[in-house]
Protein backbone atom coordinates (compact mmCIF):
# COMPACT_ATOMS: atom_id res chain seq x y z
CA UNK A 1 0.00 0.00 0.00
CA UNK A 2 1.34 3.42 -0.86
CA UNK A 3 0.32 5.52 2.08
CA UNK A 4 -1.22 8.24 0.00
CA UNK A 5 -3.97 9.32 2.40
CA UNK A 6 -2.86 12.67 3.81
CA UNK A 7 -6.25 13.49 5.35
CA UNK A 8 -7.11 10.15 6.80
CA UNK A 9 -6.85 11.11 10.47
CA UNK A 10 -9.10 14.12 9.88
CA UNK A 11 -11.87 12.09 8.27
CA UNK A 12 -15.04 13.03 10.11
CA UNK A 13 -17.94 10.66 10.65
CA UNK A 14 -21.10 10.69 12.76
CA UNK A 15 -21.81 8.10 15.41
CA UNK A 16 -25.27 6.79 16.13
CA UNK A 17 -25.85 9.57 18.67
CA UNK A 18 -25.06 12.20 16.03
CA UNK A 19 -21.66 13.06 17.55
CA UNK A 20 -18.63 13.67 15.35
CA UNK A 21 -15.95 11.00 15.36
CA UNK A 22 -12.54 11.34 13.71
CA UNK A 23 -10.41 8.45 12.58
CA UNK A 24 -7.61 10.09 14.53
CA UNK A 25 -9.59 9.27 17.70
CA UNK A 26 -8.58 5.63 17.24
CA UNK A 27 -4.82 6.10 17.18
CA UNK A 28 -3.13 3.34 19.12
CA UNK A 29 -5.30 0.57 17.70
CA UNK A 30 -5.41 -1.17 14.36
CA UNK A 31 -8.67 -0.05 12.72
CA UNK A 32 -10.70 -2.06 10.24
CA UNK A 33 -12.82 0.29 8.16
CA UNK A 34 -15.68 -1.33 6.29
CA UNK A 35 -17.34 0.99 3.79
CA UNK A 36 -20.80 -0.27 3.05
CA UNK A 37 -23.08 -0.04 0.06
CA UNK A 38 -26.78 0.70 0.45
CA UNK A 39 -28.14 -1.32 3.34
CA UNK A 40 -30.52 -3.51 1.32
Amino acid at each position, binding site marked *: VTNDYPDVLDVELLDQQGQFVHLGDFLGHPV*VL*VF*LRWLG
Partner: protein
Amino acid sequence: VSCREHLAQLREHQEELEQLGAVVLGVSFEEPSVIAGFAERESLPYPILSDPERRAYRVFGLERGATAQVWSPNAVRSYARGLLRGRLPRLPRADIAQLGGDFVLDWQGRVVYEYRSEESADRPAIESLLDAVRAADNRP
Protein backbone atom coordinates in the same frame (compact mmCIF):
# COMPACT_ATOMS: atom_id res chain seq x y z
CA VAL B 1 -20.74 -11.61 -0.66
CA SER B 2 -23.14 -8.83 0.26
CA CYS B 3 -22.34 -6.17 2.87
CA ARG B 4 -24.63 -8.01 5.27
CA GLU B 5 -22.81 -11.32 4.79
CA HIS B 6 -19.43 -9.60 5.04
CA LEU B 7 -20.39 -7.94 8.33
CA ALA B 8 -21.67 -11.28 9.64
CA GLN B 9 -18.31 -12.87 8.81
CA LEU B 10 -16.53 -10.10 10.70
CA ARG B 11 -18.93 -10.56 13.61
CA GLU B 12 -17.91 -14.23 13.80
CA HIS B 13 -14.27 -13.11 14.23
CA GLN B 14 -15.01 -10.36 16.73
CA GLU B 15 -13.31 -12.13 19.61
CA GLU B 16 -10.10 -12.60 17.62
CA LEU B 17 -10.21 -8.99 16.46
CA GLU B 18 -10.62 -7.84 20.06
CA GLN B 19 -7.66 -9.98 21.12
CA LEU B 20 -5.63 -8.24 18.41
CA GLY B 21 -6.66 -4.90 19.88
CA ALA B 22 -8.47 -3.95 16.68
CA VAL B 23 -11.39 -1.58 16.35
CA VAL B 24 -13.92 -2.36 13.63
CA LEU B 25 -15.88 0.56 12.21
CA GLY B 26 -18.58 0.25 9.59
CA VAL B 27 -19.25 3.33 7.46
CA SER B 28 -22.53 4.00 5.70
CA PHE B 29 -24.00 6.90 3.76
CA GLU B 30 -27.56 5.92 4.65
CA GLU B 31 -29.79 7.92 7.00
CA PRO B 32 -29.01 7.43 10.73
CA SER B 33 -32.41 5.81 11.37
CA VAL B 34 -31.74 3.25 8.62
CA ILE B 35 -28.28 2.56 10.04
CA ALA B 36 -29.62 2.13 13.57
CA GLY B 37 -32.29 -0.34 12.41
CA PHE B 38 -29.75 -2.30 10.40
CA ALA B 39 -27.25 -2.50 13.26
CA GLU B 40 -29.95 -3.74 15.63
CA ARG B 41 -31.33 -6.34 13.21
CA GLU B 42 -27.88 -7.69 12.49
CA SER B 43 -26.77 -7.63 16.16
CA LEU B 44 -23.51 -5.98 15.20
CA PRO B 45 -20.93 -5.77 17.99
CA TYR B 46 -19.27 -2.71 16.45
CA PRO B 47 -20.57 0.71 15.41
CA ILE B 48 -21.76 1.76 11.99
CA LEU B 49 -20.76 5.38 11.50
CA SER B 50 -22.53 7.75 9.18
CA ASP B 51 -21.00 9.61 6.25
CA PRO B 52 -24.02 11.17 4.54
CA GLU B 53 -21.99 13.40 2.23
CA ARG B 54 -19.66 10.48 1.37
CA ARG B 55 -16.58 12.57 2.10
CA ALA B 56 -14.79 9.59 3.63
CA TYR B 57 -15.74 7.47 0.62
CA ARG B 58 -13.99 10.03 -1.56
CA VAL B 59 -10.89 10.24 0.65
CA PHE B 60 -10.54 6.47 0.30
CA GLY B 61 -11.15 6.57 -3.43
CA LEU B 62 -14.45 4.69 -3.44
CA GLU B 63 -16.53 5.41 -6.50
CA ARG B 64 -19.93 4.66 -7.93
CA GLY B 65 -20.08 1.55 -10.06
CA ALA B 66 -21.39 1.11 -13.56
CA THR B 67 -24.58 -0.90 -14.05
CA ALA B 68 -22.62 -4.08 -14.81
CA GLN B 69 -20.75 -3.70 -11.51
CA VAL B 70 -23.90 -3.04 -9.48
CA TRP B 71 -25.92 -5.90 -10.99
CA SER B 72 -23.09 -8.38 -11.38
CA PRO B 73 -23.78 -12.14 -11.38
CA ASN B 74 -22.23 -12.32 -7.89
CA ALA B 75 -24.58 -9.61 -6.65
CA VAL B 76 -27.64 -11.32 -8.13
CA ARG B 77 -26.58 -14.62 -6.52
CA SER B 78 -26.10 -12.83 -3.21
CA TYR B 79 -29.61 -11.33 -3.34
CA ALA B 80 -31.00 -14.73 -4.36
CA ARG B 81 -29.34 -16.33 -1.31
CA GLY B 82 -30.97 -13.69 0.86
CA LEU B 83 -34.38 -14.36 -0.68
CA LEU B 84 -34.01 -18.10 -0.08
CA ARG B 85 -33.40 -17.27 3.58
CA GLY B 86 -36.60 -15.24 3.61
CA ARG B 87 -34.85 -11.90 3.52
CA LEU B 88 -36.61 -9.45 1.25
CA PRO B 89 -34.43 -6.61 0.02
CA ARG B 90 -35.53 -3.17 1.09
CA LEU B 91 -36.56 -0.78 -1.63
CA PRO B 92 -33.50 1.39 -2.23
CA ARG B 93 -33.78 4.94 -0.95
CA ALA B 94 -30.07 5.54 -1.24
CA ASP B 95 -27.59 5.34 -4.09
CA ILE B 96 -27.32 1.67 -5.05
CA ALA B 97 -24.36 2.38 -7.36
CA GLN B 98 -21.95 3.39 -4.59
CA LEU B 99 -19.29 0.69 -4.19
CA GLY B 100 -17.75 -0.28 -0.88
CA GLY B 101 -14.32 -1.27 0.30
CA ASP B 102 -12.24 -2.36 3.25
CA PHE B 103 -9.19 -0.66 4.73
CA VAL B 104 -6.92 -1.36 7.67
CA LEU B 105 -5.12 1.41 9.52
CA ASP B 106 -2.20 0.60 11.75
CA TRP B 107 -1.81 1.91 15.29
CA GLN B 108 -0.38 5.17 13.90
CA GLY B 109 -3.29 5.70 11.53
CA ARG B 110 -1.40 4.70 8.41
CA VAL B 111 -3.34 2.84 5.75
CA VAL B 112 -1.67 -0.57 5.53
CA TYR B 113 -4.35 -2.47 3.62
CA GLU B 114 -6.80 -1.39 0.97
CA TYR B 115 -9.45 -3.29 -0.92
CA ARG B 116 -11.87 -1.47 -3.20
CA SER B 117 -14.78 -3.57 -4.36
CA GLU B 118 -14.70 -4.23 -8.09
CA GLU B 119 -18.43 -4.88 -8.07
CA SER B 120 -21.23 -4.74 -5.54
CA ALA B 121 -20.76 -8.23 -4.04
CA ASP B 122 -16.98 -8.13 -4.08
CA ARG B 123 -15.40 -8.14 -0.61
CA PRO B 124 -12.02 -9.29 0.65
CA ALA B 125 -11.61 -12.67 2.28
CA ILE B 126 -11.84 -12.34 6.05
CA GLU B 127 -8.50 -14.10 6.43
CA SER B 128 -6.75 -11.41 4.39
CA LEU B 129 -8.27 -8.73 6.64
CA LEU B 130 -7.15 -10.63 9.74
CA ASP B 131 -3.65 -10.96 8.31
CA ALA B 132 -3.60 -7.21 7.70
CA VAL B 133 -4.71 -6.54 11.28
CA ARG B 134 -2.00 -8.83 12.64
CA ALA B 135 0.58 -6.99 10.55
CA ALA B 136 -0.87 -3.62 11.59
CA ASP B 137 0.16 -4.08 15.19
CA ASN B 138 3.65 -3.08 14.05
CA ARG B 139 4.85 -1.14 17.05
CA PRO B 140 8.61 -0.95 17.39
